[in-house]
Each structure stands twice: as C-alpha cells, then as structure tokens.
C-alpha cells in the first residue's frame, strides 16, 4: 500500500484518475439505490388492499384490472414472439450456412428492430394493426406490436444459447442415426433451454414496463379486456394516474409493484442465465 502511495506521489494524475473512477462508480450505484429506495419508501405506505379491489372506479383507482390485462398482454405477445424468435434462431444457427447473405440480412434487420424506439413501434402499430387491419384499439393490436418489439431480444438470446452447445453433441447424434430435426429437438434444445428462458424472461420485463408502444395500440381503458377490447396495462395505468396529477399516491404505489416485478424478472433472467453457464462447464 505504501508502495502505491509512493507511486501516486510521483504521479499525481494517476491518483486523480483512480479517484475519479471511484466517484463515478459510487454515483452510478447510488443513483440505482436512490431510485429504488425512493420509490419503495414513497410507495409502500400507499400500497393498501383497496388498491387491489375488483373494479376500477374514480374513487378507488384499483390496479387489479390493469394487472390482469398485463398478464394477458404478456401471454399473448410471448405466444406470438417466442415461437417466431426461437424458430428464427434455430434457422440461423442450425440450417443457414456460414457467410450466407440472407443470414446477414436477418442479422441487420434484427439489429435495426432492436434499435427502433418504442414510440415508433407505437406509431406503426397504430397505423398497421389499429387502422389498416381495423383491429381497433385492442389487446391484440398491442400484443402484436410488442411481439415485434421483443423479437430481436428472443432471437439473440436463443442464438447465443444454441451456439453454446458443442458441435460434438450434434455429430454424435447424427452418427447414431438421428435426423436433423430430431437432433435439434432432442439434443440441442434441452441444454440451451435456460439460455432461451433467460431471453424470454427479459422480454417479459420489457413488455411489463412498456408504455409508449401501447398507449395508441392497446388504449387506456381501465377494465378487464378481452383480446378485441381496449385495455390498459399496469405501466399505462401508472402513466394515466401520474398524468392526471390527482392520484400521485396511488401512482407511487403502482410504481412499487411495477418496479418489484421488473426487478424480479431481471434478477430471475440473470439467475437462469448463470445456471446455463455453470451447466455448460
């Protein structure tokens, strides 16, 4: 340690740089702690059972309909996006030849999709699903919009997971007489399941927290919604509450629920992913 101090005496800039990086880390971490801490402290006292009442009224802005809608949204959009994304990744990793031009096109488009801001998805969903296909403001329009939005996330994580399966597994399977399809479903998919799952969970987190893409595709009506009805998810619920300015306490309680679920999902995703890397070794 004293050696270190001696070097710092002759090289003060090194010391300054070192301290600067430490300040930056402390700032970054404390911002996280501050946001989570503030939301929890501010919101938990208002987290009353009445906020989970069966129906939404202007006197009691219950979040239960929004929560139910959110789960519906999760299920429908993942039911669309997960098979599409996983199959796409299977094609990219197992079927496409390396350096194939089409593969490069797909990679370019998935990168483009992941860069598009959610409000542009919202605009597109409004033009395409709501108006052009005439599905009106509905859960289905919202779910389709979100499915496109999370597609690149699922494709990428599935691709990584499939690539991490050693080629000798595949060769062994072929050598024992299994076909390509059988090899994929029996040999390649099982060990990559946790990687795929972590991608799907991350996608759930994004769907759960999404607002801008949903306001003008799924709408903001605070009722239990069928597939063809307009309904608000929890994050839109929170936006409406804080936007009106009358229900700030309820909004902060909603923020706690939102934050808790999203952090839980993200934690779960990295836990599952870590299990993958352990299993791989």
């Amino acid at each position, binding site marked *: 340690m004293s050696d270190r101090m001696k070097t710092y005496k002759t090289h003060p800039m090194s010391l300054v740089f070192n301290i600067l990086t430490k300040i930056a880390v402390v700032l*970054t971490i404390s911002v996280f702690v501050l946001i989570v801490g503030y939301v929890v402290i501010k919101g938990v006292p208002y987290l009353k059972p009445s906020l989970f009442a069966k129906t939404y009224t202007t006197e009691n802005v219950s979040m239960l309909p929004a929560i139910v809608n959110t789960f519906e949204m999760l299920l429908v959009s993942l039911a669309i996006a997960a098979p599409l994304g996983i*199959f796409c990744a299977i*094609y990219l990793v197992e079927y496409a030849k390396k350096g194939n031009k089409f593969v490069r096109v797909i990679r370019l488009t998935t*990168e483009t999709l992941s*860069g*598009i801001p959610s409000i542009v998805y919202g*605009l597109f969903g409004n*033009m395409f699903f709501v108006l052009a296909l005439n599905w009106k403001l509905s859960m289905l329009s919202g779910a389709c919009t979100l499915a496109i939005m999370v597609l690149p996330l699922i494709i990428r994580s599935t691709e990584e997971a499939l690539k991490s399966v050693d080629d000798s597994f595949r060769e062994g399977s*072929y050598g024992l007489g299994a076909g390509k399809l059988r090899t994929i479903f029996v040999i390649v998919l099982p060990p990559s399941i946790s990687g795929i799952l972590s991608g799907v969970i991350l996608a759930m987190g994004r769907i759960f*927290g999404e607002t801008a893409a949903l306001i003008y595709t799924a709408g903001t009506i605070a009722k239990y919604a069928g597939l063809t009805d307009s309904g608000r998810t929890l994050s839109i619920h929170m936006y409406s509450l804080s936007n009106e300015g009358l229900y700030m306490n309820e909004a902060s309680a909603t923020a706690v629920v939102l934050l808790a679920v999203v952090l839980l999902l993200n934690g779960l995703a990295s836990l599952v992913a870590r299990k993958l890397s352990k299993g791989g070794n």
Partner: protein
Amino acid sequence: MTENTAVSANTAAQKPTAKQSSHLLEKAMKALFFLCACVSVAAVIVICIFMFAKGCPAIAKIGVGNFLFGTDWSPRNVPASYGIFPMIVGSLYCTAGAIMIGVPIGLLTAIFMAKFCPKKLFKWLMPPINLLAGIPSIVYGFFGMVVVVPIIRNLFGGTGNSVLTVSIILGIMILPTIVGMSVSALKAVPDSYYEGAVALGATHERAVATVVFPAAKSGILASVILAVGRAIGETMAVIMIAGNSTIIPHSLLDSVRTLTGNIVIEMSYAEGLHYDALIGTGVVLFVFILLLNLCFNLVTNRKDKG
C-alpha cells in the same frame, strides 16, 4: 448434412415409407424455420413502408422546408402550421445533455469495473448497474417528476421542467448501456497490452487510460452510439419532465418538447393532416435512428475486421 444423408441412404431400403414421411417432415420444418426467420425482415420492411408511405406525403404537402425548419407548431390554428424545428432542436439538446452527463460517468464506471475492481466487489456492483436497464421508463419519469424537478425548481427557479432535468434523467437511463458494453470491450483487450505498458514504466492507471482504453475504442464508441439511440428515442420519461412547450429552448432551464414527446402528446386527438404530420415527426425520428444504426454497424464491422 453429409452424415445425415449417408444414414438415410442406409436405412431407406428397410423402411421406405416411414423414412419418406420423416423426410417430408424435415423439409416442412426447415421451411417453417425459414419462414420464421423471414418475419423480422418482413417486419422491418412493413414498418419502413408504412412510416414512409404515410409520413412522406404529409411532409411533402406541408413542404420539406416548412416542416423541418418551420419554428411554429400550431396544428389547430387556421391555417395550421406544422414546423417541427423546435422539436428537432429539443431532441438534439436533450440527447447532447444526456451524453455529456452519461458518457463521462459511464466510461469512468466502466474503467473501474473492468480494470480496478476486485473480483469479489464486481459480483456485487454489476447487478445493480444492469438492473438500471430494467427499470421501466415510466418509473424514471415518475422519479424525475417527484424528485429531480422540485430540486431544479428550488435551485434555479422556473418550473423545473427543463432541458437540464431531461438531460439528467436521460443521462441516468443510458448509463447501463454504456457501462455494460464498455466493460466487455475493455475486458476484451489482451492483457499483453497492459503488461507492456506497465513494463515500460507506466503506472497502473496510466496503462489503463493511455493503452487499454484506446485499444477498446471501437467497442466504446459503439456503446455511445447505442446510448444516443436510446436517449433520442426515449418517450415516456421525457414527456413527464420536459414541460413540452413548442418553442426552441434558449437556456438549460427552458421547457422543451422532443420529437417523441410531440407524437405521444398529440396522437390522442390528431386527425387528418395533423395525424399525418405526427407520422412525419416519427419519420424524422426514424431516419435519425436508421442513421445511428448505420454508424453502429460501421463501427462494429470495423472491429470485427481489425
């Protein structure tokens, strides 16, 4: 593929029908996988077609110059005027502010995490940084509205809904993008670079700052480009704290409206040309994002070759 065909040739004589049907299934599934792979391509094409087909005629009708450089946005006036210049400037100001706040903090954090951080501490510090990326933008907006806006109001006066507030919140929101990607870029630099610098007499910090950091610059640049994309496209957090007035901000404390904000705020009641003008706003945003994507691809491809 070669083992595959050899095996099917061997057993084909014994059970021809079963093999044929499974062969058919193989082909069908391959076609299905291929079709699913086409979906993302189709999605990008359809999104582009719809955005440009609806937005460009509106821009042409308003006049490219009037639309892009008009400083008056009053769609409800008669005659209405649709100039989005204040929003373009607003988006650029806020993004620049976010970069000025987020990039230095993010890069210094990344350097610490990648090179100075003890392994045990790394395990504890990295998850919260990654979790910052998971917090929904609406929660950031809420935090900005109830915490940052009052602080700015008390410190500097005004309403508190300002370029500065937006920049702070966006700066926080891009931190995880910058830190995450830069840490992997810094860690990918071969240790021999660092060792060589230290052997030549550089201090630990000097070796990292002058040798390792420049070696990782394309990955770091990519992270910054990605962060710019996130900042310019962010919507919900911004509209809650920006004030959203349609004038060009002249100071850090002026209210501002971004391109994204313009769309969300007015979509609910827009009709006719007004609606199309909002799509046009989306097109401008979309073009910004496509250009950023292009830069991103150029930077990352160069890295692959080098």
